[in-house]
């Protein structure tokens, strides 16, 4: 196991790779790792994600060729502006699948199966817009026809946990594990950022054994990134930074404002991002 910085994680990636990103919408996204990709020269990525601002930012940075998802949302703000604009100008390839189909694709990959059958997708236009998707007939007497969801094999998975130890055991303390364990097992290599690296013996001080979602057979590198899910939620360490997310959404919706947002928050490294966010919280409110 290696303890890495976010930039060292990004350096492990290659252009053209298929990257799975854990979390859900604007919840517990590995944003520090995403920001590291924004600083990189990586291009033509295929991103698999229950999409949130991770997807929006990577699209805005020009790092994404294809997106595999069922939605992209900021949760409290329903539509993700960068994703929206990219789609409307035809600037991104999309494999649009149902949420359960994405789950099944990760499950199939994590079990090293070529596909898994499911009912979701039948009758919908998901099959029309993904002509490569096939159905499969049950070999048993029922003969039922089902969608054959192909394995979503990932080159790399990126996830964010509340705690981890230096060996790569990861712990979530919030309400939902999302599908982070599946992303890791669906990937050749998985990198986990976390709010805090603690000694193995301290893991159970924060939560029960069942909160140890990730074990060290599932990941290949761990990075300590306090605030590393910001501005998405990382309960109980912090909730979503709604004020910052609103600022992001406004800037992302306005091509004139976006370069200013980039310059203010994303021009430097992770430490300077966190410092800019801190400054924003402490600066006096200016009323116009």
């Amino acid at each position, binding site marked *: 196991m290696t303890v890495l910085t976010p930039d060292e994680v990004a350096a492990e990636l290659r252009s053209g790779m298929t990257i799975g990103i854990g979390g859900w919408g604007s919840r517990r996204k590995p944003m520090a790792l995403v920001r590291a990709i924004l600083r990189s020269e990586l291009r033509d990525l295929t991103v698999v994600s229950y999409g949130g601002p991770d997807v929006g930012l990577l699209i805005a940075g020009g790092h994404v060729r294809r997106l595999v998802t069922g939605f992209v949302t900021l949760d409290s703000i329903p*539509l993700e502006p960068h994703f929206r604009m990219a789609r409307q100008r035809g600037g991104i390839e999309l494999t649009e699948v149902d949420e359960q189909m994405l789950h099944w694709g990760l499950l199939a990959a994590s079990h090293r199966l070529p596909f898994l059958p499911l009912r979701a997708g039948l*009758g919908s236009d998901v099959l029309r817009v993904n002509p490569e998707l096939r159905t499969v007939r049950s070999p048993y007497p029922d003969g039922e026809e089902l969608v054959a969801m192909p394995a979503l094999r990932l080159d790399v998975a990126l996830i964010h946990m509340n705690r981890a130890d230096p060996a790569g055991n990861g712990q979530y303390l919030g309400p939902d594990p999302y599908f982070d364990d599946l992303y890791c097992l669906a990937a050749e290599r998985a990198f986990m950022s976390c709010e805090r690296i603690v000694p193995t013996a301290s893991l159970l001080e924060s939560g029960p054994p069942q909160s140890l979602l990730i074990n060290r057979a599932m990941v290949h590198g761990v990075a300590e990134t306090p605030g590393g899910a910001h501005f998405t939620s990382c309960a109980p360490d912090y909730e979503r930074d709604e004020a910052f997310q609103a600022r992001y959404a406004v800037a992302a919706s306005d091509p004139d404002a976006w370069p200013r947002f980039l310059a203010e928050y994303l021009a430097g490294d992770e430490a300077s991002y966190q410092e800019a966010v801190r400054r924003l919280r402490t600066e006096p409110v200016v009323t116009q």
Partner: protein
Amino acid sequence: MSGTATRAEVCVAACADAWRGDSAILASPMGLIPTLGARLARLTFAPGLLLSDGQAYLLARGPGQVLEGWLPFRDVLRLAGAGRRHVMMGASQLDRFGNQNISCIGDWRQPRAQLLGVRGAPCNTINHPTSYWVPRHSPRVFVPAVDMVSGVGYDRAAGLGPRAARFHELRVVVTNLAVLDFQTADRTMRLRSLHPGVTAGDVIAATGFPLAVPDDVPATRWPTEGELALIRGQLDPAGLRCQELA
């Protein structure tokens, strides 16, 4: 009976009625008025319903925020697969067979307006009962053909054959004007009841396809005094329900 209920309160009761008869299954309302409706249903005639807090916790019936279970997204999907769920989704577009679109408007390859994406609509509609909530009934929503079928309608379901579609069931569509259903011979949308003060002509004018209109369309029921007391006193004392119709 009460003539003093607002349109929003009529809608809450109409949404609640969507879950009438449901036992211990997960009610997944999307939007405020469906959420109030599901909670009202559980407090009154559908006590078995399971309701989440919008994240991963199931909250017990009755006052307070008593946690009765844990339901992360992976288990919501599992309950959907098991059929122990009745969802009430929104719809950006809906056609006469109940095909629903929440994905995008225009040509999917380069949409005029990218919306949410199909989310769980394909899974929901093919696996368990689904209802819809449309806060602004208009020809923009009720269209002859939707641009991207996310939720599966009755014609698509029939095309799959009886076995594949055996769990498909669209129950009701509740709007700010009326309640609609699919209880027609060809499973096209029918006007089921008109909210007080709304005429069949209003609904027909706001619907972009031919709607089945029975000779005698009943009025959507008023919420009872007991229901109004619950809505106003317990479920939505701040009165946010009116804003969803604004």
